[in-house]
């Protein structure tokens, strides 16, 4: 498998479909792979590391509005009732499920870290050293969600 397609749409989208559509009944629309994407305004950036035979990071990014929508659906509550801590918890669990299921299809054995979740404006990330990067977009309930998989060069 080349550096350019170490993760394909066929590998990732069934995982996202299982997480969002099957488990939570949130419609998912695949929007394909992109080379770059930016989420304007306040956003949520989640990360989880995979270390072992395969080394890298899985990032999940979306707007504050979508993070709130996901949290509301997962907690089965109202938008007015959900707290920031609950949204953070929900997004962490989404990242955990996406990362865990990607780990299953990547070369193993490897270990999964606990997820990190942050909120803010103009959030960006940087990987020290050389890495291969795949970025995929989907629409969840009509809003953009970006999944980035970073493979560290020592793989």
């Amino acid at each position, binding site marked *: 498998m080349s550096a350019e397609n170490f993760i394909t749409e066929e590998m990732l989208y069934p995982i996202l479909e299982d997480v969002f559509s*099957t*488990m939570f009944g949130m419609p998912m629309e695949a929007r394909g792979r992109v080379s770059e994407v930016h989420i304007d305004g306040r956003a949520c950036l989640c990360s989880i590391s995979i270390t072992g035979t395969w080394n890298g990071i899985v990032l999940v990014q979306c707007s504050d509005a979508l993070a709130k929508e996901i949290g509301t659906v*997962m*907690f089965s509550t109202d938008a007015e009732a959900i707290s920031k801590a*609950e949204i953070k918890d929900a997004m*962490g669990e989404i990242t*955990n499920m996406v990362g*865990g*299921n990607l780990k299953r299809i990547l070369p193993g*054995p490897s270990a999964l870290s606990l997820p990190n979740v942050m909120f803010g404006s103009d959030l960006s990330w940087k990987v020290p050293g050389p890495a291969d990067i795949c970025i995929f977009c989907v629409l969840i309930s009509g809003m953009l969600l970006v999944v980035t998989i970073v493979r560290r060069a020592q793989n």
Partner: protein
Amino acid sequence: MKVLVVDDSKVMRVILSRILKEMGHEVVEAGDGQDALKKVEESGGVGLALVDWNMPVMNGLDFVKALRADTRFWQIPVMMVTTETEMGQVQLALQAGANNYVTKPFTPDVIQEKLKSMGF
């Protein structure tokens, strides 16, 4: 029956608790393995434990090992509910004493069917 749900994610505890309560069970929640051991002790034992793997403080695998090493609670059935989906991890959990295994994401039907297969 009293069921212990062990997961560091509140939303997962809420989701699993909802499924278990719909099945008529009483739920005790814990946020990590160490907290779970305390809750088992305080409850005087539970009828079943649903346990995540990756948690801070004490992970699910270490919790299962600690439970199986305790002569008072070693018979409590355990079902792992986790994103650890590799076959090697499943085998590791079963060898440590877990009775069943469900991978996230799941639907309520999957949890209910697994529990029925365990006699609950």
